[in-house]
């Protein structure tokens, strides 16, 4: 297993390298630059500013400098003067992580039971009902659900603050909004996985031998039925904890998610590179973790 993990990590290096080169090139071909402003500045000033940010050097040198200072942790953010990219990620990631983690727990707690329920009551009104709810959750964008929840529970009942991330209760609405979307997805995946397992011979045998339904579900089928959910969870977890632009904007949460969008709009080359590689690394690691878990859950798979 350790050999497997080692080789997978080794494979990740060229992936990240190629990704960083693509990101770098895309940044440089995008129109405009980080320093272009409504107020035009004299070319001499623009030249000095570009020099100060190392943009006057040949592109390969720029790439090398960007990457080495990113690794050394002293790559300055262009649009947040006086801070480094690493610092910004370190400062904002915890918010996104907390938001994502709670949302994911909500998603699992809602989604798995819903999916199991639907699978067991397959093709009944209960199945259609819960899958409609799930479909609704997938289709309803967070920027609609978020303000709706705020309208009812913050503006209406006055139970929560409409925005912010200060009191513990401030977590409820954003996490619920984000969690609902993922819950819907998980419910559908769980249903699919469970149906497959429930159709297998060993389940019929177990039933024939008189295993009580609850034991059958929890002890014999759930493990297999959740495999699709587990493989989905890898990338989903990476995405959910690296922040959501929409949720963070609606609820005014100082997380990392906003940087994915704003740094691109601002052409903050360094921050773009930082966020892209951070997300990619998360994705690689979590996919690896998921692969390991898959093997542990599914005896038919082996580390290769």
């Amino acid at each position, binding site marked *: 297993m350790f050999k497997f993990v080692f080789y997978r990590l080794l494979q990740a290096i060229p992936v990240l390298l190629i990704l960083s080169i693509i990101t770098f090139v895309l940044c440089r071909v*995008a129109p405009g630059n980080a320093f272009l402003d409504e107020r035009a500045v004299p070319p001499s000033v623009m030249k000095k500013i570009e020099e100060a940010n190392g943009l006057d050097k040949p592109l390969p040198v720029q790439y090398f400098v960007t990457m080495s200072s990113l690794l050394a942790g002293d790559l300055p953010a262009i649009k947040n003067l006086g801070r480094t990219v690493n610092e910004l990620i370190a400062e904002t990631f915890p918010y996104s992580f907390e938001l994502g983690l709670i949302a994911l727990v909500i998603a699992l707690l809602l989604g798995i039971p819903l999916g199991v329920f639907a699978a067991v009551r397959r093709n009944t009104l209960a199945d259609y009902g819960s899958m409609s709810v799930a479909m609704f959750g997938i289709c309803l964008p967070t920027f609609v659900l978020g303000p709706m929840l705020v309208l009812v529970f913050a503006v209406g009942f006055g139970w929560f603050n409409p925005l912010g991330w200060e009191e513990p209760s401030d977590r409820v609405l954003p996490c619920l909004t984000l969690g609902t979307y993922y819950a819907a997805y998980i419910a559908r995946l769980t249903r699919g996985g469970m149906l497959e397992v429930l159709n297998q011979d060993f389940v019929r045998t177990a039933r024939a031998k008189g295993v009580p339904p609850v034991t059958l579900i929890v002890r014999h089928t759930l493990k297999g039925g959740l495999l699709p959910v587990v493989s989905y969870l890898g990338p989903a977890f990476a995405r959910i904890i690296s922040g959501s632009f929409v949720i963070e904007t609606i609820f005014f949460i100082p997380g990392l998610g906003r940087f994915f969008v704003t740094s691109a709009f601002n052409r903050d080359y360094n921050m773009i590179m930082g966020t892209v590689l951070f997300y990619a690394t998360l994705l690689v690691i979590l996919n690896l973790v998921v692969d390991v878990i898959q093997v542990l859950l599914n005896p038919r798979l082996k580390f290769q």
Partner: protein
Amino acid sequence: MSTKTKGNPRWRVTPTQAAIRCLGWIALLSFTSSCDRPSRVEMAAETQTFLMGNGAEPEGLDPHIVTGVPENRIFHSILEGLVGIDHATLAPTSDAGAESWTISQDGLVYTFQLRKNATWSNAERDPVTAHDYVYSYNRVLHPDTASKYSYMLYPLKNGEAFNKGDLKDFSQVGVKALDDFTLEFQLESPTPYLLSMLNHYSWWPVHPPTIEKHGEMTQRSSPWTRPQNFVGNGPFRLVEWKVNNRIVVEKREDYWDADRVKLNKVIFYPIENLETEQRAFHQGYIHVTYEMPAHRIRWSLEKYPEATEIDPYLGVYYFRVNLTGSKPGADAQREAARAALKDKRVRKALALSVNRKAICDFLAAGQLPAHGFVPPGTFGYESASSLEESLEKAKSLLAEAGYPNGAGIPEFHLYYNTHEDHKLVAEIVQQQWNKGLGIRVALFNQEWKSYLNTVANFNYDLARAAWIGDYNDPNTFLDMWVTDGGNNQTGFSHARYDELIRLAARASSPEERLALFQEAESILMDELPVIPIYFYVSKHMLHPSVKARPPNILDRHPFKDVYLDPNYFN
């Protein structure tokens, strides 16, 4: 088809209607139950904590590097310039760094007596000296700093030469510390708006030892602006700065005018999304919003007239016209379009056929139709020229130019940056030109940086633009149109215009200056490298418990007198 009616028709509702009613009931019922918890705004009145929505996350807090409006608001709390302003009239006041000043007869020498009891916010409480100002101006003008606002200091003698690197010796620049507390400016030419300019943060000082401690003088980015390092001379000190979250400043008890400062704390929230900000305001999370979404204004004026603040603002919304012609290798269409725009009569036809009142009515926030380029209310100025909107005249001009009813003009390409309002204005004008003149316009929406790139490279026929005055004087609106001016970006070049702007800078009396500017503006409105659309208004929600914060045309608000009235809630 069934002819039976199901129940009383009054009670028949569609599921959507039912859902809306349910939501309505929930909201209504809960309103009554939610009023017991005091809002943050209410609690803030007790502690005198002013909560501000502040737009985007500030790029930085170095007054010599950044250029944004959110930063400007913060600077008013933690820094202080030589001259203060009257909150309402913007007239210069002597309640800032300088306690008095004299101006020489020829208007070329300004001598400031600095306040001896003004201190920096560091532990040693260093006095703010004339040397600090000299150091700061060296920093702004130094070519290596590459300050975007360095041109604000060009009135200083040799300021421009030093900034452009033609002059290496800063001691030749017209700013001197005569002693620790006497500062002298030598000007290039009399600059009647200098005192107004001094209220812009590019003229505000920084603490030299702090700058040097964390980097070099000309370093564009260093940790000196971090809360633990920041040293300022304003009424508040920077205590906290969490990215995308908040900036907190607290009252300085050692500030020279501390008795006048009533607020204990100001918190700036970078709430970029306008809808989120509105929600924050209406839920008592902040006292004042940074902006207002256009579609809320009518509703807000009706429902919360006492909290909706809409005031004239020193800014103009206009379209740039590309006068540079087509680039080599352009297709025939672009070539023909640019050629048409080089004809003054075509530009005039476009300008005269815009129904500005219809646009302003649509935007509904009290924007004024712009028939000139300098906004009304600009200090000491009154426009002498005015575009007379007339469709008839526009049509005949177009025919005269050889394009009767728009025949022969290919589609014009109008560019604007992504924004709901810009889209609306562009669409209205597109229709007006199409209906009135038979001219077709294709609209191109680009995100901000791409749009800036398009304009800077003259890849447009027409482009939406705006200009907000840096200071309260017609010069800030007119000197940008000189030949090759950095913000001209239309290719407009007019010898007499350039001369008038030069002459105005040296004018000996306000009357002469006014006349020169008026002539310049009428040239601009005759040549029309720009098509003015409307004059801006500032739009905010301001909680009625906030007192002594009158509106002004620059929308600049010092914090000195502002206070929160706890009685408002009783």
